[in-house]
């Protein structure tokens, strides 16, 4: 039985969008859990202002072919959209299929891949993996054109098993070598996927103990039908949206949901968010906010006139440079987000939010509301209950200092 009170509603919203404010919490409580989930997982109409702004930013990024402009566009989109779950899921797949502009060097390709995650991310993983395998940015990233009949390149075959579908321990080196031959000839030509028949090895391959004249799609299907696939997806979903170290039993339960929904993502995530475990005290406040979650989750509810180039640069400095993950493994996350330098930068950012207009202008109504009604904002800002001592300090503080004090607490780094 789930008690969907303000605390539970705030927890749900923190996990499914970037930051939360008291009005959003009140609305969720009023609607109830099921209606709130239905709303969050159903496409909502965007505002005219958001549509116009994001179109201008996207057009500018395409026109200038500037990845910096594209980063600003996506961050603006994450913070401004009426469909935050879609953007969270897009960010999830960007980390899962981590592809960096630093090697791809093409803004149109990175844009197309990002659109792909947005369009297919909530749907069937079968379709998503099949499409990603032919995605131009991925083909550049994992050296598709270097995979030739007589000189197979194992990059994509290895990552499709290790990082995309199965996880370590569910395949052998022999499987990778054989799969690489199946992907030979999956090339990029004139910026598009092209099956280069002359470079494809059409001989027999043996993968996962099965033998046949497998091509790349056949290998993808073998991976998708592998029993490790739903378990791998379950682990990734839980680690990102629920808890840093999910128990094997919980992974099994979510894997069963993936099997039940034929590897379709959104229904599984929705069911996880409806489960009592999701609201357990051992789940709330256990995830360290990623830089994007910290920065957007702070600016979206608190600020207006957000300066996107500064936000983009800050996110990169904090360790999450969107469109440029550090490796094919993506961002490790968790405790890796917090190191000595990053901690100081995080604190400086939160100090700037209340003390300068470097990243945006603090909404006057927010400063006033926090000074007058701090309790509402404590629920929105903190994923875990504050100690009595901390509450007392905040209550006794000069009203105008309450927000900066709140943001400086270690508890604010958790979600």
């Amino acid at each position, binding site marked *: 039985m789930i008690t969907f009170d303000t605390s539970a509603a705030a927890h749900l919203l923190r996990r499914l969008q970037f930051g939360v404010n008291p009005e959003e919490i009140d609305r969720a409580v009023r609607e109830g859990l099921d209606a709130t989930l239905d709303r969050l997982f159903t496409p909502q109409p965007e505002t005219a202002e958001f549509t116009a702004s994001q179109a201008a*930013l996207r057009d500018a990024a395409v026109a*200038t072919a500037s990845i910096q402009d594209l980063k600003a566009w996506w961050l603006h989109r994450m913070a401004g959209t009426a469909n935050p779950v879609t953007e969270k899921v897009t960010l999830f797949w960007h980390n899962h299929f981590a592809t960096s502009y630093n090697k791809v*060097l093409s803004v149109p390709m990175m844009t197309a891949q990002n659109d792909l995650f947005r369009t297919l991310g909530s749907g069937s993983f079968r379709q998503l993996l099949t499409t990603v395998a032919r995605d131009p940015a991925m083909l550049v990233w994992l050296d598709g054109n270097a995979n030739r009949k007589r000189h197979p390149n194992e990059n994509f075959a290895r990552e499709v098993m290790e990082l995309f579908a199965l996880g370590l321990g569910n395949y052998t080196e022999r499987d990778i070598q054989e799969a690489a031959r199946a992907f030979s000839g999956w090339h990029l030509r004139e910026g598009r996927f092209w099956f280069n028949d002359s470079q494809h090895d059409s001989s027999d391959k043996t993968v996962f103990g099965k033998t046949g004249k497998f091509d790349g799609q056949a290998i993808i299907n073998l991976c998708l039908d592998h029993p490790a696939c739903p378990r791998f997806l379950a682990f990734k979903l839980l680690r990102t949206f629920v808890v840093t170290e999910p128990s094997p039993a919980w992974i099994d339960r979510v894997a069963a949901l993936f099997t039940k929904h034929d590897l379709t993502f959104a229904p599984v995530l929705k069911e996880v968010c409806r489960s009592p475990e999701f609201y357990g005290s051992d789940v709330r406040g256990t995830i360290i906010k990623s830089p994007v979650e910290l920065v957007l989750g702070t600016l979206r509810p608190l600020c207006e006139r957000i300066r996107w180039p500064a936000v983009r640069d800050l996110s990169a400095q904090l360790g999450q440079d969107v469109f440029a993950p550090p490796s094919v493994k993506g961002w490790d996350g968790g405790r890796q987000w917090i190191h000595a330098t990053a901690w100081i930068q995080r604190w400086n950012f939160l100090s700037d939010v209340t003390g300068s207009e470097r990243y945006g202008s603090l909404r006057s109504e927010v400063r006033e509301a926090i000074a007058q009604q701090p309790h509402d904002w404590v629920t929105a800002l903190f994923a875990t209950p504050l100690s009595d001592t901390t509450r007392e300090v905040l209550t006794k503080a000069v009203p105008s200092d309450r927000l900066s004090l709140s943001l400086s607490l270690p508890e604010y780094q958790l979600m």
Partner: protein
Amino acid sequence: MLFVRSARVTVWMGLASLTWSTVGFCDDGSLSERLPPGAIAVAEWANANALIERAQSSPLLKAAYESEPYRQWTESNNGRKFRGGRAMLEGQLGLNLWDASKRVLGDRGIVAVYPPSEPGGKPEGVLLVRLADDEIGGHLKSRLEALIPLANDKIKSETVDGAWLTTAPDGNRTWVKDRWVVGGTARIVDDVRRRLSETVTDSLAKTLGAKLSGAPAKSDTIVSLAVDPVRIRELLGQARLIPAKLDNPLASLLFGGLTEYAAIGKDVLASLQIRPEGFDLKFDVSGDAGQIDAAHKTLLSTQPLVQPELLPTVPRRLATMTLVRDWATWYRQRDALLEAKVLPEFDKFETGLATFLPGKDFSQDILSLMSGPLTLVFAEQTYPHLPQPPGLQLPAGALVVSLTDAQRGADVFNLFIQTLTSLTNLEAAKQMRQPWLTSAETYKGVTITYARYLEIPKGQALPAIFNAQPASALVGSQYIAASSVELCKDLIDALQSTQKTATTTAATVQRNFELILAPENAAPLVKSNHALIEARGVQEGKTAEQSKSEREFLETILRTQKPLRLSTDVTPTGLTLTLQGGWQ
């Protein structure tokens, strides 16, 4: 406190313009006739009324008032302070600031600076203003007199011979009578008072004032300035006021000749004439060309001007800049023109250039091929070579140089472009961009060598690199290197037209430098790139609507501007710098 400070300011502004007698005084000669001789600098204005009225009715000002940025500014702290201060001042004056400006400053005025009366003292100055009408003085006096006590008795106020005399603690004073206002150091103010009521034989009009411009037409405003640099150098005990070596190579190249003349010149004169349709700002520096050293002479080369501009205009022109220099000698003499700290940059430049022109010396093998004018041209593009314009539309640019040996020069410059194209193709391959192929076509008898794209993507906004399609051509001894075939063809038209004109027209002046900006032609470019410009606003936290409004305001401003021209002409006895502009 704020009120008291504001009131003090208002008192001084009022005193500076006050009159309380009805005795008229009419004189259409230069006000320098009323100033004592000996000034080292003097500036006079006449008929400022025409300028103020024009500014007041300007469509540009109207557009600014109606713009979103202005609306936002008026709602900001500074905007609110400005509006409050203006309302308070206008309330005290009983006039709006436009009317007050016209009636106080709208007729004539003069400012002069004199050497210190004692060795080691500060320079002295005087301001003489003739008010625009007989009533304004009395009106202001009646509104401002009561505010004098707010200055805490620090300003001494008295009536002397029917005039109102005020003296500040530092000795500066203001004298007001009839339509005259005189302000400045006490000694000179008293001298001017005497000259306003007596006939005197000597005056500034017979010395430095004689070099000021005459009275303008009724609809024009004129401001003129005369400086005596010889006397200033004497007073300062320095042989020159501007160093011979500059620390900015570009500034040296552009204006090194002008600054050298100014450093050693005999007279520096300036005039600003504002007409209904535009303005002319002119600086004349006279001096002895024989005193200019060989290094600076390289910056004072000229080209005879046989038509309004050195290079006829090309369609959709945004800017043209022509420099006439003795290029090879200039480069060899750079040690005498530039400070030592910037010279190593030239060595780095030469090292980098070796990549494109291996085995060539920049001065001996390249600059020696150039003689006289070097012109840079920028113009909007229409992209006839593309199925659709790029997402980011950039102006086309071109370089036009005069060659001493046309064919040899063209070969060297073509080698440079071919190497650049090859290197660019290598980079294009790395970044999966379309490479360039070298092609050629003939246009009006001239062979154009250009780079074309192997293939052009369809169905999407083209990347910005598609703005460029390098092209080169040789027209007579003029070599063109352009970033687009379209501009290259336009320049061929322009140069062929120049050659026809040159054979039939006599030169009027000797032009040394010419810069022409055409802001109105930038308006379509702003419109074409509206998405990008508006996106920059959104990136800075503005709404899409705000960004659009600001972009439209920018377009409006650009459309009201006529071409701006800056030029220098050189004669055996001096140099003239002229800035001309216009508005709708």
